[in-house]
């Protein structure tokens, strides 16, 4: 088939599609929506997974988080009532990590407490994080104003704090926070810095008080020197619950260590596990590896995308069946025309090509429109539903490829039927 014949066939196909505008449009709609949904679904899947990966990456892929948890035997309600229970990570643990594992670059112990913060007559629930200046190594701290903790704050047990933007917004409204004093548990802390919101308690999932379900609706984090936290809040935690009084002693709620290279993460986890299993027979710790979570997230993403993609592909398939249906109707409607063309010298392959070109044009047009719409929908989803979406080039190519394949596959049978009708019968057809 030469170029001229090819062009003529395309012209002929376009003409007959144009003659049946409404029918062509309705048929193409199936493909348009199919392609649209493939792209949109994949964009939503991709967006969700990237968000999850970002969240995990913010925890740091070179970080290993060791958390204090309640040892299993203490979960039981204790009828004895008041009793001192000591568990969890200790300063000694932190020291040991630092001195025995050479791959570790920095060790950041954290004391985490649920408290209330007051400024003037305003009160909000917060999570106090007592930590050291090197906290900025393990979590990116974006300071809007002021500075983070320094060694002097730590050494002199200064009553200073860095608040995050949530707290700033809720407590200070229009006041200048720097130099102001906020009251936490009877003591005043001077605000020395305002940072962007780093991690919500829920995301970190980790402090002991949090997992006990005691608080929810923590507005944000307040960072104070670890030494100050130890001095002011002590290590005794009194809980009055349904099972009576519960006194427990916990030194540190969390220790985050950072290794020099990502390859060192898993071996270091191994070593940490060994060390801790010897010193903590009660199993009162838990190790969280963001890198592992990252890998799991990638896996989940794959499954998520496959599921969403398949659902969308089914709608493309339905579109394809619609095309086949219409083309079969078209063929039987144009039986006589086929007979005439055959009598005037058309070969079977000419007829096949004529009908196939119509379906392919229809699906191509539908596919292109679907790509345009499908690239717009994720923006709307992000805009209206605040869901993150990412339109990837490969999803565009994939959906277009699928629609073209469907066009050819579902167009083939009607075209074959048309070409193999008996010319004499076709000419007699009314």
């Amino acid at each position, binding site marked *: 088939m030469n170029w001229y014949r090819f062009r003529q066939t395309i012209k002929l196909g376009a*003409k007959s599609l144009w003659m049946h505008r409404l029918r062509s449009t309705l048929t193409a709609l199936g493909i348009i929506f199919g392609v649209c949904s493939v792209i949109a679904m994949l964009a939503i899947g991709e967006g969700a997974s990237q968000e999850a990966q970002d969240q995990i990456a913010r925890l740091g892929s070179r970080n290993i988080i060791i958390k204090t948890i309640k040892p299993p035997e203490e979960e039981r309600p204790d009828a004895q009532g008041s009793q001192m229970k000591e568990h969890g990570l200790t300063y000694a643990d932190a020291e040991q990590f630092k001195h025995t594992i050479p791959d570790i670059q920095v060790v950041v112990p954290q004391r985490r407490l649920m408290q209330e913060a007051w400024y003037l007559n305003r009160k909000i629930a917060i999570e106090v994080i007592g930590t050291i200046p090197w906290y900025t190594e393990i979590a990116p701290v974006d300071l809007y104003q002021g500075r983070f903790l320094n060694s002097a704050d730590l050494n002199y047990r200064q009553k200073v704090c860095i608040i995050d933007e949530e707290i700033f917004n809720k407590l200070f409204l229009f006041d200048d926070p720097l130099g102001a004093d906020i009251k936490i548990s009877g003591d005043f802390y001077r605000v020395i810095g305002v940072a962007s919101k780093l991690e919500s308690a829920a995301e970190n999932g980790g402090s002991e008080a949090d997992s006990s379900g005691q608080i929810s609706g923590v507005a944000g984090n307040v960072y104070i020197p670890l030494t100050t936290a130890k001095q002011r809040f002590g290590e005794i935690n009194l809980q009055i619950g349904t099972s009576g009084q519960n006194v427990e002693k916990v030194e540190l709620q969390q220790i985050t260590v950072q290794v020099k290279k990502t390859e060192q993460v898993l071996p270091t986890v191994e070593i940490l596990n060994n060390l801790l299993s010897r010193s903590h027979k009660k199993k009162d710790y838990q190790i969280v590896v963001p890198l592992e979570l990252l890998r799991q997230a990638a896996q989940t993403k794959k499954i998520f995308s496959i599921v969403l993609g398949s659902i969308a592909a089914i709608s493309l398939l339905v579109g394809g069946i619609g095309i086949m249906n219409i083309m079969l109707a078209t063929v039987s409607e144009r039986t006589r025309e086929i*007979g005439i063309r055959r009598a*005037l010298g058309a070969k*079977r392959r*000419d007829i096949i090509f004529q009908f196939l070109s119509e379906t392919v044009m229809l699906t191509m047009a539908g596919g292109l429109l679907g790509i345009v719409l499908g690239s717009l929908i994720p923006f709307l989803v992000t805009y209206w539903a605040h869901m993150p979406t990412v339109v990837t080039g490969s999803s565009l190519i994939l959906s277009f490829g699928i629609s073209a394949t469907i066009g050819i596959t579902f167009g083939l049978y009607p075209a074959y039927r048309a070409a193999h009708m008996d010319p004499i019968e076709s000419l007699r057809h009314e």
Partner: protein
Amino acid sequence: MAIVEIEKLSKNYQMGRLNVAALRDVNLTFEKGQYIAIMGPSGSGKSTLLNLLGCLDRPSGGCYRLGNDDVAKMEDDELSKIRGQRIGFIFQSYNLIAQLNVVENIEVPMYYQGVSARKSSERAKELAELVGLGDRIDHRPSELSGGQQQRVAIARALANDPLILLADEPTGNLDTQSGGEILHLLDDLNNQGKTLIVVTHDAQVAKRAELVIHLLDGTVERIEHNGKGN
């Protein structure tokens, strides 16, 4: 020179368990430039014969030579080519393609032979002129009278300058006036040397033909030789 030679040509149709012999052992020879009429009662096999002559169908038995080719045993693609190059069809119900205009309809046979766009549209316009429709070239079939449509069909049949023109009741759907005009046109073509094979019930047609084949029950009952007509 014989351009059509058929020998012991037969065609059977299988209707369930019934075997219908539509043509039985037909022998015919046509010379170039002849005007041939095929007559006979309904069901005698006229259309079957014409379809075989037009290579729309393959015989159940016998030989058919068209020009220099033995077409009885050709493959589908070869038959398509023969139809496109050697045969011009004129149907009782015109059989124009409704969505194409006059010129485009005339171009269809040339399109399948790969004639270039420029050449084929030139020739199509010439042919439209020839059949007296030079001023209607962009009309759709639905905008033309029956007689005009049949003229377009004749122009289309001439597009690839075929060896034989086959017409099945070309005036069957027309009134006497426009039927007469069509017959005139066919006369002109025959006078210019075209071989015409026309199936008809019309005595007017038979009078013009130099050879009238009378069919009965799928066999040639008799052949009438007229002196060259008009």
